[in-house]
């Protein structure tokens, strides 16, 4: 087909149906619908549902995304993984995680409350 389908792959898809507010005191994890590919600058994330490409522009951010699941809150993950954790860098990473949440790269972990006695 002559339809030009080259170019850089920037998709401008509508965002996830239910954008989630980012609560950094909650527990988060990398979405199962995400492909993450290591790259020299950090990693490239691809959301298989929304078909959005997202650049994670540092190796630390990649570690953070992968490490979220091991901590009770995003704040705790940042504290443990990001160095140094001065206010500025903490804020920058909260902001980055908020954008990732909005793009559906990370999702809140909903702990199923079961009534097993």
């Amino acid at each position, binding site marked *: *087909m*002559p*339809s*030009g*389908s*080259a*170019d*850089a*792959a*920037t*998709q*401008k*898809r*509508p965002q996830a149906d239910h954008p989630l507010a980012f609560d950094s005191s909650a527990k988060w994890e990398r979405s199962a619908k995400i*492909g993450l*590919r*290591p*790259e*020299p*600058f*950090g990693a*490239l994330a*691809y959301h*298989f549902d929304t*078909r*959005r*490409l*997202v*650049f*994670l*522009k*540092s190796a*630390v*951010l990649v570690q953070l995304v992968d490490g979220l699941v091991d901590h009770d809150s995003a704040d705790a993950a940042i504290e443990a993984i*990001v160095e140094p954790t*001065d206010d*500025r*860098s903490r804020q*920058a*990473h909260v*902001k*980055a995680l908020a*954008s*990732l949440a909005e*793009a559906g790269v990370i999702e809140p972990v909903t702990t199923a409350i079961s009534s097993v006695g």
Partner: protein
Amino acid sequence: MTATQSSPLTLISKSASTKTQAVPPLVEQLKGGLDAPICLTWELTYACNLACVHCLSSSGRRDPKELTTAEALAVVDELADLQVFYVNLGGGEPMLRKDFLDIVDHAVSRNVGVKFSTNGYYIDKAAAERFAATDLLDIQISLDGFDAETNDAVRGKGSWEAARRAMDNLADANFGEFKISIVATRHNVDQLDDYKKMADEYGAQLRVTRLRPSGRGVDSYQDLRLTHPQQQQIFRWIMDHPDVLTGDSFFHLNALGKDTGETLPGLSMCGAGRIVCLIDPIGDVYACPFVIHDEFMAGNVRDTGGFASVWRESDLFQELREPGAAGACASCNAYEACGGGCMAAKFFTGIPLDGPDPDCALGHADEAVAAASAAGVVPQPSQDHSRRPVTLGAKPS
């Protein structure tokens, strides 16, 4: 992370423009190349039932050397191992391959998303339902005129009707959001609003891309390319319609925003061999789908080491990842905005690769384009599978 104000993340879907920061901007890093392409086009066959005048791959007849089913499935495996997230399948008409569905199914099963580009002739009701039931599949139907007259002059008689039938079938099958893809020409640029309405009615997404003088487009480019006023027009239109996809193909028009600071959404760079490449039906790997010419052929997927070593090690791709010189554009104050434009468009209009884009919005290439075309020094594509000479149909007035 260095201590900067900017977030360590860029959503490419918003804009890749990064604030000044200590780490090189993302665009600079992308220019150095990635471990695997982001935008990989794989043309499955040179066979096509149509003969569009601007076909970028000069398709028509099948090539006897095309990849076998086993070879094609092996390419899919390799792409999956490289974590290529999705491929753009095309042709020719990809649905003409008897193993088309096998290739699609295999890709999807290996978590490689598929978008395929088709003229729609073979999307009957049954095919539409089959596609609607397939995950990770995206379909793009080409339509180069809002009405039959405009479209068929470029794509051939009956092609408008076939494309509309395919869209109807996809809508009836509840496929979801397919794409309607238009190559912008001087005859359809006034129809963009109509197209948008049509896409909205279908629940489809509109995609408008730039015409390039590639393949048979070498011959039809002068008759179809946008005029300077039309470049202004489409620049504005895209700015006003951020939900329309463009494949970032109009970044050369960013020169028009140099005074107002406006830039089109997306990456403003040539991705050839850096984030973009083409695998052609016989397995040859080119820097981009729009440069099917020996000069831009980096290797073949059948070579030892396969696609990965062509992508990572070929001399050509290494070279394309080196920082380029601005050449004749160096003195232009729009260079930062437009980057000098599209390599393929320059090459096939006989302009040096460090010269201005033939569609330079500031008109800096007009003389050179006219001179090269008068002297007949424009290169021809090295693959031509046209069934017979193809000429532009009755032009709409």
